[in-house]
């Protein structure tokens, strides 16, 4: 569960993504098929360089009951030949400040991802051993574990059918513009364990980045929409600063804002990602101001 969540958060927000054009070309003369578009869009989110990143991310959640919650995190991520490591430090709200999630995702696919939790109120580190359903809600947000975990690798769970092209208004590299997107109809694969059997996705024609997704429930009604916006260039990639996931039936919404992201050189030390060191972790050592560090 947490592996997929953290992987995609890492991918989308920390800024790891494909270099423009890398692995994204279409060989044939005619337009690509829907399946090809989905595969290319998946490639864009999976080809990642090595290195260390720090980002400040804000989750704005609007619950179905009309109340809201905002959480701000500092993400410390590192990817090398041993695998991926991620430390999520809670900055806000005040009562949660100092809480840390830590994940180790080994490069060896036979090894399991490990997760730890440090609660500043408890002063102890606990390893999380969880089999929880990947469709469960992530931190009360509209992002499901599998949806967040799967990111926009829709090719794994859906077949695609190209419906045509459509212009979409997005903020692209600092300007409000219209990007031409492939419009692809989605149909759930028989073996897929996703909540939404059908949907539509819009994929940027040039960069094969997913711009928007609409997902229908079992009754055929539109239930969830995902919108990506404010695309910026970062470390040679084009990444979204804003992701909005909305449930149109119950009115809930989660907005993921990337407030800041930077490449860290030299690399973040491995000791940062040691669970035994979580108690002593100070984000200010890495240039991240924390309201709960005295």
């Amino acid at each position, binding site marked *: 569960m947490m592996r997929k969540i953290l992987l995609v958060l890492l991918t989308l927000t920390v800024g790891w993504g494909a270099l423009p054009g890398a692995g994204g070309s279409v060989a044939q003369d005619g337009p690509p098929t829907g399946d090809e578009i989905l595969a290319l869009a998946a490639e864009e989110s999976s080809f990642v360089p090595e290195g260390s990143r720090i980002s400040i991310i804000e989750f704005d959640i609007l619950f*179905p009951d009309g109340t809201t919650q905002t959480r701000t995190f500092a993400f410390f991520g590192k990817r090398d030949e041993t695998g991926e490591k991620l430390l999520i430090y809670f900055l806000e709200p005040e009562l949660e400040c100092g809480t840390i999630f830590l994940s180790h995702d080994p490069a060896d696919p036979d090894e399991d991802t490990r997760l730890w939790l440090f609660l500043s*109120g408890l002063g102890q580190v606990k390893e*999380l051993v969880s089999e929880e359903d990947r469709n469960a809600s992530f931190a009360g947000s509209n992002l499901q574990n599998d949806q967040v975990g799967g990111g926009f690798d829709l090719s794994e769970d859906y077949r695609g059918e190209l419906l045509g092209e459509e212009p979409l208004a997005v903020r692209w590299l600092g300007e409000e513009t219209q990007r031409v997107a492939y419009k692809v109809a989605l149909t759930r694969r028989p073996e897929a364990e996703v909540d939404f059997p059908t949907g539509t996705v819009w994929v940027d024609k040039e960069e094969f980045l997913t711009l928007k997704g609409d997902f229908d429930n079992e009754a055929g009604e539109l239930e969830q929409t995902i919108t990506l916006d404010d695309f910026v260039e970062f470390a040679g990639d084009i990444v979204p600063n804003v992701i909005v996931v909305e449930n149109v039936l119950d009115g809930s919404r989660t907005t993921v804002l990337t407030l800041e992201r930077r490449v860290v050189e030299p690399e973040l030390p491995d000791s940062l990602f040691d669970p035994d060191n979580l108690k002593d972790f100070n984000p200010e050592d890495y240039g991240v101001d924390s309201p709960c560090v005295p």
Partner: protein
Amino acid sequence: MHRFIRGLTLWVETHPGLTLLGVGVLSAFFLGVLLTKGLTFETDFKKFLPEDEPAVRRLNEAEATFGSQDLFLIAIEAPEGETIFRPETLQKFKELEEKLEEIVGVDEVRGPATAYVIYGTQDSVVVERAMKRVPQTPEEVEQYRRRVMGDRTLRGWLLSEDGRAGAISVQLEVWADAPRVVGQIEELIRPYQNPERIYLVGEPVLRSATALSMMRDLRVLTPFVVLVMVLVLFLSFRSVRGVVLPVSVVLVSTLWTVGSMALFGVPMTPFAVVLPVMLIAIGAADGIHILNKYYEEAAERSDDSPQTRRAVVLATMEEMAVPVILTSLTTAAGFLALMASFLWPQRQFGVFTALGILYAMVLSLTLLPALLARLPLPKWKHKDYYERSRLAKGLSGWGRAVARKPALTLIVSGLVLFVFSVGIPRLEVETRADEFLGQQHPVVQAMYAIERHFGGAYHLAVEIDTGRRDGLKDPKVLQKIAALDDWLEARPEIGRVASIADVVRQLNETLHASDPAYYTIPEDPRLAAQLFLLYGGKPGQLFLGDFRKGEVLARRVNIGSTQMARLVREVQEYLDKNFNGPGEPQARLVGPTQAYVALLARIIHSQITSLLASFVAAGVIVTLLMGSAIAGLLALLPLVLTILIEFGVMAYAGLPLDMGTIMLGSIAIGVGIDYAIHFLHRFRREAQRGASAPQAFQTTLHTAGRGIAYNAISLMLGFAVLLASSFQSLVTFGLLLVLTMLISSLSSFTVIPAILLLRQPRFLTQPSPIWEPAIQEPVTANPRGPLP
């Protein structure tokens, strides 16, 4: 008015084709409306509540904020002497839970097979499925049992304390078609019954069962009551016209009424499901009395020319129009008095029953004479048949007894009244779902099962409002909520309690290596807040996303409304004492329990108002149309007796006044006054013809009295059809209506004549200035000779 009646009768006699055409066109219109728009059904009891009522507003706000607080469970009860911890039973849980998840419209399924257990060790927090695979060996079963029974979120909620039952909690999607999902679940669980018993419980189930019961009642009771009417009419009149004509009137008026409901988009509710039965039973009365008089008039004629036929019909209608209109208006007024009810289904029932009665009146005044004038006069002398009948002998005997000792008759009536009236203070106002549906109803059986094993099938909900974001994460607030939980759980009416305090205590225990000593609220507010990061549920069930407000949900057993009122009062006292101070979190009851209790007082009040309103309306109508206040009072006397004796019987029999029977009074007045009106009207007519009081009494007994008897029998048998209803409450209602008809008809033959024999008020010999011309004919020959 008399001229109008005469004019109308003459017109329909001479234009039968047009009359029939008019009736046909209207009938076709209403039938068309029914076929195109159809009749809708409303079974959600919460929608019956007035939305502007503060208690109901609280309920609706809580549901809008926190979602539906009703349980929707599938409970599996192990065979006698067993527990559910057997591979075969656990296999059923696994299969059912997996299949439930596949149903479109089901959002979440949580049961003994799919639930997660969460526990802590020194170094870790483990969240894992309670059952990875179905345990087969005794050791595996025991290991599973210890794992799940050791989890407080499962024990008592999804698993009974004694292990005899397990429950699968089902949450529906907001967009789900609940009746369809319920139907699919019922189909799904059917093959899994036995040896375990499987129950389906929940508000959607109750609504679905209610809708099915309503449709069944409509399908079964309506033709049943028609059959009963046919039988009674045939036995009364022994002729085809004696059956066909009144039945035609009631069927057409019922069609028009139900068509009117469809036209205005008014749904059928559990209250209105008796409407066709009521209309058919009551609507036949006009036809019975008209035919009764028709046969009487026809017996005096020797030729069968068209003129004679029309003269017979004219004489019949001139005599019967007044009482028919009077009785129809008073009956309609009795039902219209239900407009004082604040439950709209009762108001709707009152309005449309009144409308149906007025439709029947119009048809009786037009269709019946139009058809009768065209038919040959009956060859068979109904009078001869009647005079040989047991009814005639019975009425004669009764008449002799009353005429001999009218004062004694009144004394005996008074004594009977006294004996039953003294029991009335024992009468309880109670409504329980099991008594509404009946204890054997599968839905009620399921509720009992949930009560036995899981502490209650209903929710009592308390809303806690801290007034500030993250207020519920404050340990001081959590301590108060924990204390409330413990106080509620100690009460006998309450089973298990769930709240945010339980969540925090459970998580704190888990994080401290599942040490029970840590099943407490942490003192550090940071820890209390951070514990929620481990919470896997969605906000909105026990607390809102910003932790400003939350709910405490207590499972409540099925108790009567009196006990419920006491519970609500005591809970509110506790809340006022421990919360609700300045600067303190505010706590109030918000669920269906408090709404019901708050409304109960209003229900009683509105029904008393309805009763008084119908009483007054009936009395005023009779007074106005008979031109005498004494006549109005006399007509009401049998009703006073009827209602007081009725309530006394209910008190002695332990039958409570509930949502169904509480309508009894208004209906009794509306229907029961008919007998008094017919009796008084005929008695007066005979007195105006010069008859002495004894002579008038005897004649009335064997003319209008005959019609009253036929009418009372037909109504008693018609209402007895309700004994076949799916709703226990309607069965009781039907029984009481039968009793009402019996008492009110007998009172009309007893109290009224006894008073009139002792003293003859002036109105008897004076015509009503509104209705009647003075009668010039001599005294009518007594058909049976003078009373001995």
